[in-house]
C-alpha cells in the first residue's frame, strides 16, 4: 500500500472516530444522529432482513437505466455533434450554460407528461448526466492528433470505422470523466426526485424515515447510497487511470 492511500484511510478513520466520540459523549444528541457504529449495525439488519430490498432495487435499477442512457446517448450525440461543425458551433454555448438549469424543476412537468412512475425519475437522472458525457466526449474527440486521422485515411477507413477504431478509442479516457459524472448525476436525479414525489425507492424511504424521526432507517440508507456511488466512481477512476498509464500519461 502506498503512503497516500494509508493517509487517506487514516484520515477517514479519524473522522469516523471523532463522530463516534461526539455522539457517545452527547455533543451530538441521538435524535440528530446515531453513532457510526450504531449505523453500521442498523445497516446490517436492514440488509439481513431484506426490509428495504424493493426500494433499493427500484432505485438501483432506475439509476442504472438513467446512467446507461446518459452514457450511450451522450457518446453517440458527442460523435454526431463532433462531425457536424455548424451544429457544434450552435450548441457549444448551450452546453456551457446547461448546468445553470435546475433540471429537477422540470420534474413536476415530467410527472404531468408521463405520470408518477419510473419514467420521469429516469428522465431527470438522464438529463442531468447526458450533457456531461457529451461535453467530455467532445473534449476527447477534439484531442485526437491530426496525424492519426491521416493514418486512418491512408488505411481507407470508412467514417464509421474512423469513429469506432480511431477517434473513440483515443477519446476513451476523456469519455470516462463524463461517465463518472453520469454515475453521480444518475443517483442525484433518481434520489432527488424520489425525495420530492414518488411511490417508493431509497429516496422515498429516507424522506419517510426523516418525517418519522426514524434515524435507524434514515442513516443506514444514506450510508448505503454513499457506498454504492463511491465504489462505482472508484471503479471507473481505476479504469481511467489504467488506460492513462498504458499511454504513459499517469
Amino acid at each position, binding site marked *: 500500500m502506498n503512503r497516500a492511500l494509508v493517509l487517506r484511510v487514516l484520515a477517514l478513520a479519524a473522522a469516523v472516530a471523532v463522530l463516534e466520540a461526539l455522539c457517545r459523549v452527547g455533543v451530538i444528541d441521538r435524535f440528530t444522529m446515531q453513532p457510526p457504529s450504531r449505523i453500521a449495525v442498523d445497516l446490517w439488519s436492514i440488509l439481513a432482513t431484506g426490509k428495504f430490498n424493493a426500494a433499493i432495487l427500484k432505485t438501483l435499477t432506475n439509476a442504472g437505466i438513467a446512467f446507461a442512457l446518459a452514457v450511450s446517448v451522450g457518446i453517440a450525440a458527442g460523435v454526431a455533434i463532433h462531425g457536424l461543425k455548424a451544429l457544434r458551433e450552435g450548441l457549444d454555448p448551450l452546453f456551457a450554460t446547461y448546468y445553470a438549469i435546475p433540471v429537477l424543476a422540470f420534474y413536476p412537468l415530467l410527472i404531468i407528461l408521463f405520470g408518477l412512475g419510473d419514467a420521469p425519475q429516469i428522465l431527470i437522472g438522464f438529463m442531468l448526466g447526458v450533457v456531461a458525457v457529451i461535453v467530455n466526449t467532445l473534449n476527447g474527440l477534439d484531442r485526437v*492528433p491530426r*496525424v*492519426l486521422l*491521416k*493514418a486512418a*485515411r*491512408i*488505411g*481507407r*477507413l470508412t467514417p464509421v*470505422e474512423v469513429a469506432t*477504431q*480511431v477517434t473513440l*478509442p*483515443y477519446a*476513451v479516457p476523456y469519455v470516462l470523466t463524463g461517465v463518472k459524472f453520469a454515475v453521480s448525476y444518475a443517483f442525484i436525479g433518481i434520489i432527488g426526485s424520489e425525495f420530492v414525489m414518488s411511490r417508493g425507492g431509497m429516496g422515498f424511504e429516507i424522506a419517510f424515515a426523516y418525517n418519522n424521526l426514524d434515524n435507524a432507517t434514515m442513516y443506514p440508507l444514506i450510508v448505503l447510497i454513499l457506498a454504492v456511488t463511491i465504489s462505482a466512481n472508484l471503479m471507473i477512476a481505476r479504469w481511467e487511470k489504467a*488506460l492513462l498509464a*498504458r*499511454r*504513459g*500519461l499517469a
Partner: protein
Amino acid sequence: MSVAHVTLRGVTKVFSRPGKGGEVHALGPLDLDLRSGEFFAVVGPSGCGKSTLLELIAGLATASAGEVAFEGRPIAGEIPDGVGVVFQEDACFPWLTVVDNIAFSLRKARLAPGERESRVRDAVAMMGLGGFERSYPAQLSGGMRQRVCIARTLVMKPRLILLDEPFGALDQQTRLLMGEEVLRLWRQTGATVFLITHALDEATMLADRIAVMSARPGRILEIVETGWPRERDSRVVEDARFGALTARLWQVLRQESMKSIGRPGGVPEGGA
C-alpha cells in the same frame, strides 16, 4: 530507363485561410517523375512545402492546379491503393499494442487465414521489434515507435512508400542505422521510395536521386543523381563522391535557406 511510377504536371497548392483572410501559396508549379523502384529523396528549407508535396502524392490533399498520377491513374483526393505513408509525427495508436498497431490496416484487407499473422511476424522481425510485441507505444523509445509505424506500412506491401522526415526526432547514430534499414527494405520490397529529410548527408547516403526544393512556394531547383549501386549501405559516406554530392546539395540550398530565414544570400549579418 524504367517507367514513371508517379507523375506530377504543373502541380500547385494554395491554402486558403478561412477567417484569417489571404492565401498561402505553398507549392509549385512543379513537374516531377518518380521512376518505378527508385529511391528518391527531397530536401528543402523548412516550410517550403515538402509535406504538402507528400500529401498530394498520397491523396491526402488535392492540388489547386495541375495533375498528380500514380501508376498512370490520376489521384484526385482519393487514397490510391498501394501507397504507404510514414508520417513526420508519431502516428502510433497509443491504446494498441505493437502487434495490434502493425496489424491495424490489415484488419480491412481480405487475406488468406494465417497470412495476416505471418506478415505481422515478418514485419516485427524485419524492424527488430522482437520481444516488444505486447508492449504499448508509450513503453517504447521514439525510434522504436517510428519503426512500428514503418512496420505498419510494410505489412500492406505498398508499391510506393512515402516517408516524411521519419527520423527527425532521432539521434544521429539511430538515424544512420534506421537509414540502413530503410535501404534494406527498399531492396527487399522493390517498392519506390520517396523520402523527405532535412539532413543532406542522409539524402546523399540513401537516395538514387535527390530533389532540392526552393523556399516557399516550393519548386524543384535541381535534381542531383548519386549514381550509387543498388547494393549499398552507410559506407557510401567513405566514397570520394559522397562529399562532392552533399556539397552540391548545400550549394543549391544555402541561398534558399538564407531566403527562408529572411536574409539575402551571402550578405553577412550587420554588413556594411
